[in-house]
């Protein structure tokens, strides 16, 4: 067993090491050489302040008493970090935007930069944390006492420890007043302590599993009572513990400090989302084996809360016990240090500063060095908080009440949760609602859990606890309104959260938020929409630049202020002197000050300088509306620009298409002109001949007249065709679909083209088969057949010319093929034949303007069929597709 001297010297050396590390990190950060100080790993390790002496030692104790219950304390934070995307990310973003310094500052800022809510939250945090700090002091003095061979005074030990912690915290926690409350020295030292904790506990665990026992199987085989791992533990208490511990990583002042305030980069959160759960996983891994080893290897009166130390000691492994001691030492000191920093910031910013500002009654620039005052109030707060913890320890020390104080504290700070969630997600949550909720929840917590935990030694006598005040049993603190919960913690959690949430919702709905509250609510709830392109929201205040600079200097220090002001001046285009006192300047200054003294105080100070800081409600409303409009507007612009891009490309496309169509139209008109002028030429010419020529022979004159007649007919046909195309293409044609005999239509068309064929000497090959009734328009179908047939006659020109007409049927599809034995149509021209006025190789069709095939195709498409050109075959082969007539489709 290590001697008392060894323990003391080791502790002092360890503390010296922590000082060096903190100092070194602070120096590096000052020079801007952050290196791994600003990595996600340091951030993750610093989160381990969650694992205090209570969990370090108490976890094993809890495992010995209630089996896996201890795991809930670690699984809760695991859940919160797995869900970082939902809550933590938003908290961190808001805190970075608003320069939040503490959980009290967050709520104060959100609920209208209210001083009162800051005070309430600070008081609650101090009240809930003091016993917790006392608990750390107790476990430290207990662990020291364990190694002491001379009779030590636990109170004395605790006193000196408290002094040492105060010194460290003051040295590294209040070295400077920064615009963003980040303490690289402390965080790095805490990270180191996290490693020590983990190494110590894991070492003890490995020693137990592989040194004392013979592997995991053996250690679990030694378990004294299998009931320890029964399903009993997964009851309401399990759920409550998960809820409280999940809440604690956000609401505990020290956790808020490391997780949110000290966060330098949002991406670190992503790493911590799995790395921190992994850390607590490793911490929990050996808790059960150590507990089993303690229960089986040590006398039954040994305190399970000290198994981590007594198990290695009992096995005669002194150096391991020393390491375990250092682990516990780390757990306790890191908690106290961070809690003291967090609480002192809150006390100083939300209680001392407002009081001082009020008492000074003067402009802050004229009243001494604010900066000095601020550091002094921080340091005094740290000493005060540790003194409180020490006093609490002295008065309750050794009582069993301390054992459960960890969870009591968890529920105490959990009273902030509804207001925090409301702050982040519910714009309707108001200041009055939040204050009422926090106070009511806290009162229920104190009445049902905190005060009864003293077993009648404090405020409530034992008979009141068991019978209720004035004997009213309905008000019994642990059976409120007769509710029977087996566990007081579950009872208190259910009642306090119910009252809390109800108060928040009801009072918020009933109360009227101030304009500043509405503004802040918008900034909080919509933080992800605003951050990208932060619209300048600023109060119009008439302050002189000199005064503002003076104020900044007093709080932020000369150098920082100078840098900030010249920066702003440059952005205003001024190369020397102070910037103009614009709204942006006051707003930036206020945010910077908020980082040091909290939003409420910063707001008050800047407003005080700026003449009357009070802004008219109507102006604030206007600003709030403007903000909403700007957000809305920028969203819309974004959307618009996307739409515009799309439209532009569509327009380009449409333009190209229009160009094409215009060209087609020109070509079409020019074609029409040509087609009309050609017959007109003959008509005019012969008409003039007839008019002027008296010497014409009657025979000649008759011939000329007949030419005129013929050409006039050609003109008429042409005009008909043009009209036909236009009507068909616009879908206005009156085409009916009635049962038509296909054979009759073909016969009709053949009869019409018979003279043409005879003149050209065409041999027709056609065998009429069984008749098919098709769905068509009799006249239109005949027109198509005639068109195709005369086309074949004109272009077929085989030697000797022949035309084959075939009919085939496939279910409801009927095909009529008209093929000639001519030269066929070149592949390039196959689609062109259906274009208007196409005459292949400049050939003019007798009596046709080249509209026959396009018209025919339009007709067939209007009949739900088609006209296509079969690309194969020796000659040109046109295929007319039709539908058979189906009763069911047409009798409607």
């Amino acid at each position, binding site marked *: 067993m290590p001697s008392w001297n060894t323990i003391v010297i080791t502790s002092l050396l360890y503390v010296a090491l922590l000082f060096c590390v903190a100092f070194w990190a602070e120096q590096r950060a000052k020079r801007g050489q952050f290196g791994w100080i600003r990595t996600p790993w340091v951030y993750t390790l610093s989160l381990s302040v969650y694992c205090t002496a209570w969990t370090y030692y108490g976890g094993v104790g809890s495992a010995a008493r209630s089996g896996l219950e201890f795991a809930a304390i670690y699984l809760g934070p695991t859940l919160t970090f797995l869900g970082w995307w939902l809550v933590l990310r938003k908290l961190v973003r808001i805190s970075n935007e608003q320069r939040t310094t503490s959980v009290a500052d967050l709520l104060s800022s959100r609920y209208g930069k209210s001083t009162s809510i800051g005070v309430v939250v600070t008081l609650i945090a101090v009240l809930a944390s003091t016993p917790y700090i006392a608990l750390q002091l107790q476990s430290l003095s207990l662990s020291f006492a364990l190694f002491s061979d001379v009779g030590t005074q636990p109170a004395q030990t605790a006193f000196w420890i408290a002094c040492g912690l105060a010194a460290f915290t003051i040295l590294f926690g209040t070295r400077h007043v920064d615009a963003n409350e980040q303490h690289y020295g402390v965080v790095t030292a805490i990270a180191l302590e996290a490693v020590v904790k983990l190494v110590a506990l894991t070492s003890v665990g490995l020693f137990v599993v592989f040194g004392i026992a013979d592997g995991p199987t053996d250690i679990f085989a030694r378990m004294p009572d299998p009931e320890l791992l029964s399903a009993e533990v997964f009851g309401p208490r399990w759920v409550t513990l998960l809820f409280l511990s999940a809440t604690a990583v956000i609401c505990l002042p020290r956790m808020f400090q490391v997780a949110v305030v000290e966060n330098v980069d949002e991406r670190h959160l992503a790493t911590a989302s799995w790395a921190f759960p992994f850390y607590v996983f490793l911490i929990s891994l050996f808790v059960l084996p150590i507990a089993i080893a303690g229960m089986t290897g040590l006398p039954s009166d040994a305190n399970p809360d000290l198994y981590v130390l007594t198990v290695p000691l009992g096995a005669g492994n002194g150096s391991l016990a020393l390491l375990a001691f250092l682990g516990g030492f780390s757990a306790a000191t890191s908690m106290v240090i961070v809690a003291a920093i967090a609480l002192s910031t809150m006390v100083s910013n939300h209680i001392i500063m407002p009081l001082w500002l009020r008492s000074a009654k003067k402009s802050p620039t004229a009243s001494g060095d604010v900066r000095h005052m601020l550091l002094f109030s921080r340091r005094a707060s740290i000493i005060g908080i540790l003194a409180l913890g020490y006093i609490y320890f002295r008065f309750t020390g050794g009582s069993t009440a301390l054992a459960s104080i960890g969870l009591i504290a968890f529920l105490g700070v959990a009273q902030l949760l509804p207001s925090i969630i409301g702050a982040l997600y519910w714009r309707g949550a108001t200041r009055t609602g939040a204050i009422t909720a926090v106070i009511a929840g806290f009162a229920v917590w104190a009445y049902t859990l905190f005060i009864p935990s003293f077993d009648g030694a404090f405020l409530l006598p034992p008979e009141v606890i068991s019978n209720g005040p004035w004997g009213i049993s309905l008000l019994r603190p642990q059976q409120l309104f007769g509710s029977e919960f087996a566990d007081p913690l579950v009872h208190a959690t259910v009642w306090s959260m119910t009252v809390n949430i109800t108060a928040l919702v009801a009072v918020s709905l009933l109360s009227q938020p101030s304009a500043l509250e509405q503004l802040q609510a918008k900034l909080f709830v919509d933080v992800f929409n605003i951050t990208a392109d932060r619209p300048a929201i600023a109060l119009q205040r008439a302050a002189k630049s000199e005064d503002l600079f003076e104020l900044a200097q007093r709080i932020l220090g000369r150098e920082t202020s100078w840098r900030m002001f010249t920066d702003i001046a440059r952005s205003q285009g001024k190369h020397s002197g102070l910037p103009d006192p614009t709204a942006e300047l006051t707003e930036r200054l206020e945010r910077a000050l908020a980082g040091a003294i909290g939003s409420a105080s910063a707001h008050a100070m800047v407003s005080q300088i700026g003449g009357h800081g009070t802004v008219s409600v109507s102006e604030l409303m206007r600003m709030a509306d403007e903000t909403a409009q700007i957000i809305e507007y920028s969203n819309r612009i974004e959307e618009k620009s996307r739409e515009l891009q799309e439209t532009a490309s569509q327009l380009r496309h449409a333009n190209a298409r229009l160009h094409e169509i215009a060209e087609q139209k020109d070509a079409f008109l020019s074609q029409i*002109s040509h087609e009309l*002028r050609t*017959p007109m*030429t*003959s008509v005019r010419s012969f008409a003039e001949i007839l008019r002027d020529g008296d010497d014409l022979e009657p025979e000649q004159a008759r011939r000329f007249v007949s*030419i005129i007649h013929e050409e006039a007919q050609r003109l008429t046909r042409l005009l008909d065709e043009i009209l036909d195309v236009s009507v068909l293409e616009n879908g206005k044609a009156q085409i009916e679909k009635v049962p038509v005999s296909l054979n009759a239509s073909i016969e009709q068309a053949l009869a019409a083209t018979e003279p043409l064929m005879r003149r050209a000497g065409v041999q027709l090959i056609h065998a009429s088969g069984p008749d098919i009734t098709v769905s068509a328009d009799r006249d239109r179908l005949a027109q198509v057949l005639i068109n195709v047939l005369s086309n074949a006659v004109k272009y077929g020109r085989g030697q000797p010319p022949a035309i084959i007409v075939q009919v085939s049927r496939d279910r409801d599809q009927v095909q009529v093929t008209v093929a000639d034995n001519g030269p066929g149509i070149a592949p390039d021209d196959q689609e062109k034949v259906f274009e208007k006025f196409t005459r292949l190789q*400049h050939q003019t069709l007798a009596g046709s303007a080249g509209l026959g095939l396009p018209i025919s195709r339009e007709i067939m498409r209007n009949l739900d069929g088609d006209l296509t050109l079969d690309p194969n075959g020796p000659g040109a082969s046109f295929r007319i597709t039709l539908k058979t007539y189906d009763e069911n489709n047409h009798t409607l």
Partner: protein
Amino acid sequence: MVKRILIVEDEANIVESLAFLLRRDGFDVSTIPDGARALAEAERITPDLMILDVMLPNLSGFDVLRDLRTHGALGTTPVMMLTAKGQTRDRDQAEQLGADLFMTKPFSNAEIIAQARRLTGLTP
């Protein structure tokens, strides 16, 4: 001496009217309905004027004109072009290729006769 005119045109009725008019005015008229055979026909009869349609089967009037202008013996033959399209683009192209006259259909008989006389040198 009788002036010879070659009409290259595929519309039979137009050919008939032109031939009637010009013959009545004393010209010796030959006709051919195909652009591809126009040059060969011109070589054969060496016309004093060629009346050339633009839209011809097989070879367009412009192509015939181009070939004619690069043809040694016939290169200076006066050419009167006829077109039913009447677009400025066609008129420009005809002038560029060396057509002496560009007439739009339908034409006036008197104008055709007057121009034929002028181009064949019968009247100044």
